[in-house]
């Protein structure tokens, strides 16, 4: 039953994977190795003076309460982004799946935001929620809410969560929709004949069948929240106010690129690599068991 291509040549399979391996080595392993190397160095901005300091950069990091706080910020941010991102897109996909007329239009509109660059998405939402000129601020003020994310940390967090979720919904939507459409109608009809209502059909039949998709998206969304959102943050809050939106990846970028502290920034990248590796292993070991393929 198993389909397997057998190569008779000794070198051909290696030659075929070589380009992909080369890309991985040059763009992933090599920079990662460099990050490890720099994380043990203390260096001035122009690289004129380099000194091996062992684990000093890591000790500095973990004695910095701001760095420890940015773990909390990142955890809150990632849970919110992945949670809302998945829930909203699943809802939209479930509804779009039922639309008969003009479904193409709905789908296209829902997929659009994915083409927007993170920085642009950030600026867009920052404008709408700008403390003095934003249209949403105006509406909120009319409702009696004092909206000023420049000083209110929770509002700033909300802003970057909204912008990040909005950008990611399209991607999740695509996968959920594809997942929904691949569920055989007969299963749902059988459940309906047995007297299950729409909600029960969804939770006992559709959702378990969607679990591979959901699991894949969970991994992708966590990684998105960890790494890809710094464009949104840089364009809006820049980690402020008072560090309320200073996520781990933004701090790496800020310390390395803006503050020219290569050693400290590299040490943070190494920590970040370790976290994401641990998270991915955890997800595959424990959550994947609940997935029904």
């Amino acid at each position, binding site marked *: 039953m198993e389909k397997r291509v057998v190569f008779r040549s000794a070198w051909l399979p290696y030659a075929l994977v070589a380009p992909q391996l080369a890309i991985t080595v040059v763009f992933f392993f090599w920079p990662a190795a460099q990050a490890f190397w720099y994380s043990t160095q203390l260096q001035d901005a122009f690289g004129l003076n380099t000194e091996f300091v062992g684990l000093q950069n890591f000790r500095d990091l973990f004695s910095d309460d701001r760095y420890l706080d940015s773990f909390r910020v990142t955890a809150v941010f990632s849970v919110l982004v992945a949670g809302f991102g998945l829930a909203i897109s699943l809802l939209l996909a479930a509804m779009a799946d039922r639309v008969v007329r003009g479904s193409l239009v709905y789908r296209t509109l829902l997929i659009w935001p994915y083409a927007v660059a993170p920085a642009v998405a950030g600026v867009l939402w920052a404008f709408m929620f700008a403390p003095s000129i934003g249209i949403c601020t105006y509406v909120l003020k009319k409702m009696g809410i004092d909206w000023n994310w420049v000083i209110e940390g929770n509002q700033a967090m909300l802003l970057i969560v909204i912008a990040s979720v909005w950008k990611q919904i399209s991607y999740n939507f695509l996968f959920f929709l594809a997942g929904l459409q691949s569920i055989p109608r007969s299963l749902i009809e059988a459940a309906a004949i047995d007297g299950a209502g729409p909600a029960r059909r969804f939770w006992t039949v559709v959702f378990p069948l969607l679990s591979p998709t959901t699991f894949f998206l969970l991994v992708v969304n966590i990684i998105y929240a960890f790494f890809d959102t710094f464009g949104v943050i840089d364009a809006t809050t820049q980690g*402020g106010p008072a560090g309320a939106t200073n996520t781990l990846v933004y701090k790496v970028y800020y310390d390395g690129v803006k503050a020219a502290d290569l050693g400290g920034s590299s040490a943070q990248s190494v920590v970040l690599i370790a976290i994401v590796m641990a998270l991915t292993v955890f997800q595959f070991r424990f959550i994947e068991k609940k997935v029904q393929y």
Partner: protein
Amino acid sequence: MTHRPARLVRVALAALLAGLATAAQAQTEIQWWHSMGGALGQKLNALADKFNASQKDYKVVPVYKGSYPESLTATIAAYRAGKAPHIVQVFEVGTATMMAAGQAIVPVAKVMADAKEPFNPKSYLPAVAGYYTDRNGNMLSFPFNSSTVVLYVNRDAFKKAGLDPDKAPKTWKELNAFALQLKVRGQECAYTSGWPSWMHIENFSAWHNVPMGTRQNGMLGLDTKFVFNSPLHVRHLTMLGQMAKRGAFTYAGRTNQAEAKFASGECAMLTSSTGAQANFRQNAKFDWSVNFIPYHDDVKGAPQNSIIGGASLWVMGGHKPAEYKGVARFFSFLSRPEIQMEWHTGTGYVPITMAAYEMTRKSGFYDKNPGADIAVKQLTYKPPTENSKGLRFGNFVQGREVIEEEMEAVFAGKKDAKTALDDAVRRGNEILRKFEAANKGR
């Protein structure tokens, strides 16, 4: 549609030929990286064009490299790759980083001496030149666009609130009282401030003649420590925190976001850069004035003089002697009073030489634009002391960030001023120590 590629090829060929044609002339090119976007960028390009038209040997090529931090990062990366530009514009908080850069830079005094260009550091405003001069008296970078903080007052809003528009607040006590009255009379935002650290810690210290850090604010060495958690600093930040609580002070952000709030009429008083004047002249639909920043009148010796912000031009190492000659020629050109006056009146930045200031005054510019000379008057109010000459703190990009984070915590009511300033000093000192360790022996 099918014609398009052909046309593109033709355009590309034409561009290539044009490029070859300019390269064929035996001109020495001077690369100048800068961070002046928009209208300021046009003024800067005009300066370069004027220099290029004034002689045939050198051609200055200005390249916009994004914001100050971006351009500094680009320069560091370019230097590491051996492709640094000749001249780069670096903002004042990057000064210590550049000064510690050893062979990566060439001191301006040396560039001028080697090229035998006339150069007299004494002709520059002391508050400007002092910022960029090392402890042996050598000017290391060329002051280009210098600004300082001033107090802007919306005169129409003052009238509406029953305040005398000719009487801008002189002290913080007055500003506080005026702000409360404005608020009571329905002004949505009474007072706001751009650049919180630059205004309320850095300039505040100089203006009251108190140190921000030891070792003459870092001018004497990398072993400087922050000391801006003195009772006076705590008192000032406590006052701002209370004003924020009562709605008399509105925090707007870490850079110049507050300027938009003033220009739109939302805020009645603003402390921010002199560089904002060009914007207000164009966009403010009300009568406004420029004034000295307030001080606490019970502090002995206050007011002293304010310190500059803005940027200076650094010369990067590793180029040919002929190219440095061109750089020196260009700096001589930039120092000319008429060029300085053009830059100063066109942008709102401070004239960096006394001669340029005198020339502008005689031209009647200050009579037509009242307040445009406040910055110079404030910078030269008294001869600079060791507390008001300028700042030299390593990795101050991060240092300022720490200060601003802690200030935000006070404005949000999450920390009291004393704790926030103590924390800022402690965290700031960690950054200074790290910089000292990374730049040993300089």
